[in-house]
């Protein structure tokens, strides 16, 4: 009887101790919680400059839209190339359906803005202390970017280019 009870007790303990989390390679198929977790992990890996691991996590995000996947892939690639990052809090101000701005936060729009922040495209310091960058695209439009404290704070596209004096006024 005592031996039988010991067997039952061991079985109960084993059941209680069995991990209930979903194995890592099965994640990303659930609801927004698992997607949020993957987003956080990708961002953490980018911050830690662990780009291969960031891409591995991104592969797990089966429910993520193609557009968002592309945006994360661009973020990883931009970080690898040491491009100046966006300030996350400024994104709702940067991507707006308005004149002079990109309507959607897409990988292509991010790339156009971030790739403008180079020494060759530096226009100067604005009167209030932000670094202003601009470049002309082949089609004639102008990409403009404001950088402050190491992050992109504003940016967009002017269909009619502004002069250096206007950009810095």
């Amino acid at each position: 009887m005592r031996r039988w009870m010991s067997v039952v007790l061991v079985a109960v303990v084993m059941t209680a101790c069995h991990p209930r989390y979903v194995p890592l390679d099965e994640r990303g198929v659930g609801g927004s919680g698992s997607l949020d977790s993957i987003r956080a992990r990708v961002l953490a890996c980018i911050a830690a400059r662990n780009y291969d691991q960031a891409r591995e996590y991104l592969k797990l995000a089966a429910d993520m839209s193609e557009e968002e996947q592309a945006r994360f892939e661009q973020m990883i690639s931009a970080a690898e190339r040491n491009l100046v990052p966006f300030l996350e809090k400024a994104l709702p101000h940067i991507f707006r359906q308005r004149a002079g701005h990109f309507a959607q936060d897409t990988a292509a729009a991010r790339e156009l803005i971030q790739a403008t922040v180079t020494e060759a495209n530096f226009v100067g310091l604005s009167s209030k202390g932000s670094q202003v960058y601009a470049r002309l695209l082949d089609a004639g439009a102008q990409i403009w970017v404001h950088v402050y404290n190491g992050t992109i704070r504003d940016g967009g596209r002017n269909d009619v280019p502004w002069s250096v004096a206007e950009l810095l006024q």
Partner: protein
Amino acid sequence: MTAMNPEQTYQAVLGFLEMQWEQRPVPGEFGLFCDYCTYIPGKGTKDPAMWGDWLAAVKKLQTGVDVPDPARDALTPDAVKPLDSEQAYLAMFEFIKEYWERVSRPAEIGDLLGRMRYSPGAGTADPEMWKRWLAVVEKVQANR
């Protein structure tokens, strides 16, 4: 004081922001906001969206209607009525507040809004704010 059109009130807003900047001319969140609001004759605001945001703030104050983003670019000064100095101040408050909320409420601008808070009859939380506002309004009206 006579009523001002939206362009004149925007000049007053810029004058008020510049006065605030001169109190503490240190680059930061408030400086960035001032920068984007800069008006370049013949072009518009340095951040092209700010002019429409200003007109939308005036429109909201006058009608209660919140003009959504794409439609803001189509707003013209004709779409709003002239404002007296109190209405213009309230529109400016809403204009700054909307930006503050859009960029996740930076403390520096939040502090300014706290000092700017206006109660009819009682004035602004920091009385200096109202004095500065009246000074820039007077200047704008003298120049027209």
